[in-house]
């Protein structure tokens, strides 16, 4: 019996009379299973990315079929010295991601802690937490556009009750970006909360009890017991949300339209690159921006995972 099990586990079909091709397929199942999905992703990812890389070295513009010339690193020099559109959009991307992520993590942690221990009606609160993050982002953007409308929006009405004058919100040159950050926080804090809640639920109670018996206060227990144990989950949450926040497009496009508004007030790298590609057909320059954007994302991920490995040690 034992010998049969080992033989089977090693990977030979045991039934007598199995056709040869079935044996062959079974023996090579590792790649037969993985190849279709990998080919699909590689075809849509590797080759287009390589092409984008090549386009970034050319002066391609106008039509995708138009002739273009190889101009080396000229686009990179132009883009990296562009202080009118490129660097401001790098700044906006960093500000948007950094501020949104900070609020989402802090508020998400607070909500997760509130939901951690069972209470009456918990089911309904979980439902409420789930709603924003399954809602279509473009629709969410439109919804907030109505609420933040300077003339007819609910937001200014509410402020009026407290005697605060109307704010321009999305329409203001300096208030637009913070308002879009608010929308992002509204929609995605629940995601961070749910991930952290899953992490909290998986923690064992013993360290908590031990700390309580030792007389640790609630804050001390959170700071010195819960938080360190939750660190891996927190990193995953920051990583997942951070990548998506860097790439935010839908709510920015829905609230401010092309180019991130008439003053480019919410033009992040993703919005800028989209505009270059599909509004201005500047394929060479847009590819350069995208390659730089991609490097920024990879860099941010690398920094986070490197920190995580260090923390594990």
């Amino acid at each position, binding site marked *: 019996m034992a010998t049969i099990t080992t033989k089977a586990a090693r990977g030979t*079909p045991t039934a007598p009379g199995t056709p040869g091709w079935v044996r062959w397929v079974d023996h090579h199942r590792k790649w037969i299973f993985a190849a279709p*999905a990998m080919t*699909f*992703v590689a075809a849509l990812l590797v080759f287009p990315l390589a092409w984008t890389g090549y386009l970034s070295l050319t002066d391609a513009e106008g039509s995708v079929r138009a002739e273009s010339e190889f101009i080396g690193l000229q686009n990179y020099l132009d883009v990296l010295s562009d202080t009118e559109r490129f660097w401001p959009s790098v700044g906006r991307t960093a500000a948007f991601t950094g501020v949104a992520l900070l609020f989402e993590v802090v508020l998400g942690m607070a909500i997760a802690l509130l939901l951690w221990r069972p*209470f009456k009606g918990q089911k309904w609160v979980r439902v409420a937490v789930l709603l924003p993050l399954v809602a279509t982002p473009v629709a969410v953007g*439109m919804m*907030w556009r109505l609420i933040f409308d300077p003339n007819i929006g609910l937001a200014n009405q509410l402020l009026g009750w407290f005697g605060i004058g109307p704010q321009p919100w999305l329409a203001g040159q300096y208030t637009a970006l913070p308002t879009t950050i608010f929308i992002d926080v509204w929609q995605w804090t629940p995601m961070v909360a749910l991930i952290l809640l*899953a992490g909290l639920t998986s923690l064992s109670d013993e360290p908590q009890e031990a700390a309580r018996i030792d007389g640790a206060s609630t804050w001390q227990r959170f700071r010195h017991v819960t938080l360190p144990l939750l660190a891996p989950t927190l990193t995953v949450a920051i990583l997942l949300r951070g990548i998506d926040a860097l790439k935010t497009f839908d709510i920015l496009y829905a609230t401010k339209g092309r180019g991130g508004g008439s003053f480019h007030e919410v033009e992040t790298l993703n919005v800028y690159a989209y505009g270059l590609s599909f509004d201005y057909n500047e394929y060479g320059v847009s590819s350069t921006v995208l390659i730089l954007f991609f490097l920024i994302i990879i860099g941010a*991920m690398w920094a986070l995972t490197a920190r995580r490995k260090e923390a594990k040690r």
Partner: protein
Amino acid sequence: MRPRPAYRVFRVVALIVVVLTLVAPLVWMIAASFKTNVDIYDPAKALAFSPTIGNYAKVLQQANYVEFIVNSLWVAFAATVASLVLGLPAAYSMSRFNMKKSALVVLMARVIPGVSLLVPWFYVFSNLKMVGGFGVLIISHMFVSLPLVVYIMMGYFDSLPTELEEAALVDGLTHIGAFRRITLPLSMPGIATSGILSFIFSWNNFMFALVLSDADTKTLPVAIFDFVGYASIDWGGLMAATTVVTLPIMVIALFVQKYVVSGLTAGATKG
């Protein structure tokens, strides 16, 4: 140990604030979809208004929304099924043979900004005369949902004990037979989770359809913009349109809440 009374009061207040902040805007959107544009402009009619279904009639009849609903359903359904067909065996292989590097290639699709692929896609697919068709939309949505399926199912297969598969091999099944008859039926919760998430992400996807669809194939998130003019916005129609997009997905999510949550938090607790 019961929490102190002061904390319990604080928790109730905090929970009410959280729930109101998350739900009230959605209620406001739905309420506005039942108002005339005159009522939307009148603060006094914020909650006391006589509801009308005029906006929905406009959305469903004049704006051809039924067609866009069918488009969205078809694209999301096809992308989900195709992603499961390709993704389940791949995730299984990657889990059982510990193919970390291959998994990384698939997960790269989740990291890369979609815009950086869209220009080459547009070029290739317009040469193939596919831009504006459903095929290219389904393929582009699969690019989002396939990595999701692989990511969720790898974790699921990792957690599935191998003993039953081994027993099936002893009983004379091939490996592929064991996968089909033993592993897959055992994985139904994981398959439901990844399928539902894949559907939601496809339904909500905006950018790919914005570039790759045309007037006949556009999906709901793109069709929303029909109500945004250069000079003015038809708020009633717009809110009816956004409600048509968001309400079904929120209702579905409520019914399958458990799966949605486990999919969104997949891999978070492994460290």
